[in-house]
């Protein structure tokens, strides 16, 4: 099990390294050099020189790359050019908001996706099934931010049930929940549509497996078979889809954070991009990649827990 976890960790390293190296290269390819791109045409040579010194861009390229790798290992990306503070500190301040937002949305998506898939697969080709499948197709095509704009319009602006935007710390649980319900719903419900499609297909597939006939031949009830045998079988493929959809979820979270003014990583990344604050862009990208790695690792461990064939290393 530990060996498996280490192996998965090694396989996930490119998730961090590749985007970071890509950013490293592209920053240096910017026309007029990164400092020139940053300061604009009016900058004096002295200003450019000073900025290059600050960013370590005067050193030979190989040296810069070594420094860059070192910064990844030390989790130190220097100071933000715009916010004048240590990047890692800035990011860590915002991490918990993003993490809460994403995790709550994940749970909501999983629960909603699984429940609807169970209902649909049990009434296969019935009216309820068709309606849910229709919803899922539609849900797959709705941009999360459009849904968010509409829901804010109706439920926050018109009906005033929820605040329009903003965040409250969990020390005030009621305000905290009020601020999170809309964003979590918007992000989760569309993710649930995707999960629903795969879970339903997988449940229908499991229902025709021979072990279902075995369970019936032993007199187990349809409910027991569905809840204990079919759902169990479905967990593994759902985990796979879930792992694959984490990227969409995190991407959606970044956009929705800016819309709902949640002080998380997405908002910070947007500030960084608007100011072309290279160290801050790199820091945000790094920690988002790190979240992806950790989330994938958690999915992998769940995966192993759900499937003994993986746990005992017999999976091909």
């Amino acid at each position, binding site marked *: 099990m530990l060996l498996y976890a280490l192996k998965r960790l090694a*396989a*996930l*390293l*490119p*998730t*961090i*390294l*590749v*985007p970071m190296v*890509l*950013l490293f290269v*592209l*920053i240096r390819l*910017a026309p007029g050099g990164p400092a020139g*791109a940053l300061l604009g045409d009016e900058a004096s040579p002295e200003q450019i020189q000073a900025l290059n010194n600050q960013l370590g861009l005067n050193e030979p390229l190989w040296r810069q790359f070594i420094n860059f790798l070192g910064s990844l290992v030390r989790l130190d990306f220097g100071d933000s050019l715009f916010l004048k503070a240590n990047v890692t500190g800035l990011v860590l301040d915002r991490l918990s908001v993003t993490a809460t937002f994403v995790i709550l949305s994940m749970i909501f998506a999983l629960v909603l996706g699984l429940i609807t898939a169970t209902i649909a697969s049990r009434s296969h080709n019935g009216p309820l099934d068709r309606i849910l499948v229709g919803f899922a*197709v*539609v849900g*797959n*095509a*709705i*941009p999360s*931010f*459009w849904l968010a*704009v*509409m829901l*804010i*319009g109706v439920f926050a*602006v*018109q009906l005033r049930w929820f605040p329009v935007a903003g965040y409250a710390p969990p020390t005030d649980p009621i305000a905290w929940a009020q601020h999170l319900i809309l964003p979590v719903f918007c992000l989760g419900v569309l993710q649930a549509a995707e999960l629903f*499609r*795969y879970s*339903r*297909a997988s449940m*229908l*597939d499991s229902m025709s497996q021979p072990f279902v006939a075995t369970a019936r031949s032993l007199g187990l009830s349809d409910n027991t078979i569905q809840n204990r045998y079919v759902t169990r079988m479905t967990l593994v493929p759902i985990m796979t889809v879930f792992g694959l959809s*984490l*990227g*969409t*979820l*995190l*991407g*959606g979270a*970044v*956009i929705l954070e*800016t*819309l709902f003014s949640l002080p998380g990583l997405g908002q910070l*990344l*947007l500030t*960084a*991009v*608007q100011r*072309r604050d*290279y160290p801050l*862009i790199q820091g*945000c*990208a790094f920690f*988002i*990649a790190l979240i*992806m790695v950790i989330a*994938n690792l958690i999915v992998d461990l769940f995966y192993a827990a759900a499937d003994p064939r993986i746990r005992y290393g017999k999976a091909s």
Partner: protein
Amino acid sequence: MSASTTRFTRTSKALFHEPNALVGAGLLLLIIVISLIAPLISPDPTVVNPLHRLAPPSLEHPFGTDNLGRDVFALTLWGGRASLLITAISTAIAVILGYAIGVLAGYFRLFDSIVMRIMDGLMSFPSVVLMISLVGVLGNGVIPLIIGMSITLIPATARLVRGAALSAKELTSVESARAIGARTPRILIRYIAPEGVSVVIVQTTMALATGILVIASLSFIGIGLDPSTPSWGGSLSSAQQYFNPAWWMAVFPGLAIFVTVLGLVLVGDALRDVLDPRSSRG
């Protein structure tokens, strides 16, 4: 040649019997035609008219006007032009490069182990975040968007084609071609590459859908496209503050994104069912 022609006719016939595919193709056609002829049938969307701010839908302004008095109907018709063009170009680049990478990775093991690691790394990084970061580094504008978008879309195509190429490599026809001394480039072009065609066709629709959504997301948060260029995402972002009373500002541009993506998803799903029944999701 005749084999590919019959496959094409067979595919189009099968698609014709699929109601979802027809609806999807119809929606797509609608969006494409509207985007092409927008300059002929609608007023200039950039004209600001402070006297007609936030006017509700009327005969003169079927979708109403926005906070600057611009015609929302015109904005919606024009809003897809830039993003569709950028997405189409990036998808073309990504599909061609991804296809080549996938075929090579499927055939050459060393290339596979190095390049696919990079592809995996890119793919597991959230595409929206990757795009935001790349545009952040490269700056706003059409060219950075196309570069960033292509990089974002390549890995999925490469991965799928690689899978098809890997199984093609095991085909007896490839074995026998190798046995009679066919050169590697010939094997790649004649035997391996055609196996990836179905996958690439399906993947193209998915890449287009991703592209539309990502560009819309970026314009929504004000990154990438020049804010003065009409775009669905941009229109939505100004609609936020004016939902009450100007709901029409939010409804119509959003509907346009939805219709485009829905069309692509429906066509893509139907194509997958017809071309690649194994991976169909029921």
